[in-house]
């Protein structure tokens, strides 16, 4: 049973220098109620993937493949049809709440707007529904906050307001794109906590896009690691963190401080390939310590299973554990 099933999705952008390949063939499934962490460094295509799926990648994006959401293929849908799905079925929360909210409208009016646009039948008067939503995302004194403007709230509270707006349509899937990166450490932890609580309470699926494996370890059920527009490893969080098999995943874990306080970090050498290149083999091969001849010749195919990876010479499970 899957809620969203993305198959062989590619996204490229037309630029004056030729096509920039942001997403190079992604297969991804999200089950109902699941929290999936999509991890990758800047430029790996993790944001482009979902912007393109929801038709928000702009006029220069070329999207191919399919993204079946509850039986409907979102790729190629007209903007009119998509706009009925966005907000009601699938919502998206972005990194910087301050630039997503309207600075000259009160929180209450912005919430009312979201409620009006996304509810088929008006039901209860807007302000009561808005107050309930603010209470659900943990804003103290919601009745008074409805009359506040975004600048009167802190960054963490604004992000809670954004999440409340996204819940207005009672979506089945929430895409959270680095929802806590712009926030302070203690507030970050609270926002993650909130997302997990809402997901469990509503049975709502979440795709959490992040550059931080620690964030994924904190709240996700499954994880998919992206590199240069492809998923290189995916599986249940426990399995992947216990025994990362793709050298890139293992490298990310070894380069992050926290595991061994005194040990030396292991940076990954080299740089991310340019989106204009089309490498014949594995995109990570030039930086890979476990590279073999086959790696540069053709792309590895995924190994089937709940925990899968895309590598000719994976890290041994025992060594990784």
């Amino acid at each position, binding site marked *: 049973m899957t809620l969203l099933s993305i198959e062989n999705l590619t996204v490229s952008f037309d630029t004056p220098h030729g096509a920039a390949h942001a997403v190079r063939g992604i297969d991804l499934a999200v089950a109902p109620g699941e929290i999936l962490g999509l991890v990758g460094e800047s430029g790996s295509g993790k944001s482009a993937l979902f912007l393109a799926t929801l038709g928000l990648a702009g006029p220069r994006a070329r999207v191919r493949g399919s993204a079946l959401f509850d039986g409907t293929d979102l790729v190629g849908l007209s903007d009119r049809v998509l706009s009925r799905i966005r907000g009601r079925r699938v919502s998206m929360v972005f990194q910087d709440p301050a630039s997503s909210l309207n600075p000259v409208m009160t929180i209450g009016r912005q919430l009312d707007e979201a409620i009006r646009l996304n509810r088929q039948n008006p039901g209860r008067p807007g302000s009561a529904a808005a107050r309930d939503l603010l209470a659900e995302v943990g804003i103290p004194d919601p009745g008074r906050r409805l009359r506040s403007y975004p600048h009167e709230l802190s960054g963490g509270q604004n992000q809670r307001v954004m999440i409340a707006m996204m819940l207005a349509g009672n979506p089945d899937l929430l895409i959270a794109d680095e929802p806590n990166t712009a926030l302070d450490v203690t507030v970050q932890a609270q926002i993650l906590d909130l997302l997990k609580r809402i997901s469990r309470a509503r049975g709502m699926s979440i795709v959490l896009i992040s550059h931080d494996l620690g964030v994924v370890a904190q709240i996700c059920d499954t994880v998919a690691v992206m590199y240069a527009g492809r998923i290189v490893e995916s599986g249940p969080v426990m399995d992947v963190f216990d025994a990362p098999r793709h050298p890139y995943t293992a490298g990310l874990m070894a380069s992050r401080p926290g595991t061994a306080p005194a040990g*030396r970090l292991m*940076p990954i050498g080299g740089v991310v390939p340019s989106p204009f290149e089309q490498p014949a083999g594995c995109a990570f091969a030039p930086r890979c310590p476990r590279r073999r001849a086959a790696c540069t010749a053709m792309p590895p195919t995924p190994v089937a299973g709940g925990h899968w990876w895309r590598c000719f010479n994976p890290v041994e499970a025992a060594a990784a554990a």
Partner: protein
Amino acid sequence: MHESRRSILEVCELSCRFRSRGLPFLSGSRDIGAVDGVSLTVGRGEIVGLVGESGCGKSTLAKAIVGLGPIEARAMRFDGTDILRPLDRRPRDLIRRIQYVFQDPLGALDPRRTVLYQVAEPLLIHRRTPDAERFARARTALRDVNLGEEIEAKYPHELSGGQRQRVVIARALVLEPDLLVCDEPVSALDVSIQAQVINLLRDLRDRLDLSILFISHDLAVVRHLCDRIAVMYLGRLCEVGPAEQVFGDPRHPYTKALTSAIPPSHPRLAKPPVRLPGEPPDPGDPPSGCRFHPRCGDREALCSRVVPTLEALGDGGRFAACHVAKRSTPAQC
């Protein structure tokens, strides 16, 4: 250990006040104490981490140390010399010995000059080296940060984020400073690249006996790199101590909340964070007594009335500014 070494930097009761004008018809001008009575030392060859959330004054403190921005203090000494004066009134050689590394390397570099020129430029400004030697010295600095000859003729936009930050560090190192003040030097970098810069800073300390004041909001990075940690909240220090002890056994309630919010390295280690009610208050109108008391779960009547001073807890080089933590520490002789 490091704290027994001679200190290179001593800051005694430093405050930085800004005048906020606000909107004239709403309120008069008022003073905002961004930093309030902070005392801190950095030992020779020591890496001290300064952590705290945005607006707590950590960058203001760092800038005051290099002589930027308003400074009031009882004393501020660098290697025994008084440095309680703004940058333009500091002797040139003193300026040379304290260097600053900014968060955003692209913004800190000149887009129209080559790497080699930019790394050599401080030597020209400080008239430290004969013209003939300048570029040779710049090359040495670039080698110190593990950058090869191939990047000397490049421009900043041609480099990766990690390379750029290493160029910025090389440019600071070329003057052979004793203290490096790094303000969020890895925050703008990807995880795999961050590790290069963190390893580099540690190597430089080991090799050159460089002292580093490392400012960051990323607690995992600070824990990994620093010998000692100073935790700041709303302009004041709330806890200071050896890194492993502060993270392993935090004593101030704010430090407890902060350390509990570090993302885990493995899902099995995930635990719910300590919840702090409310948000950091307005630094223009700080709470009375302990500035943390309105959000503190351990607060007592005393906390809202009396400002806690930073006092030693035991004899392990640990300090906390908390009435409750102080009392719960067994007295040691």
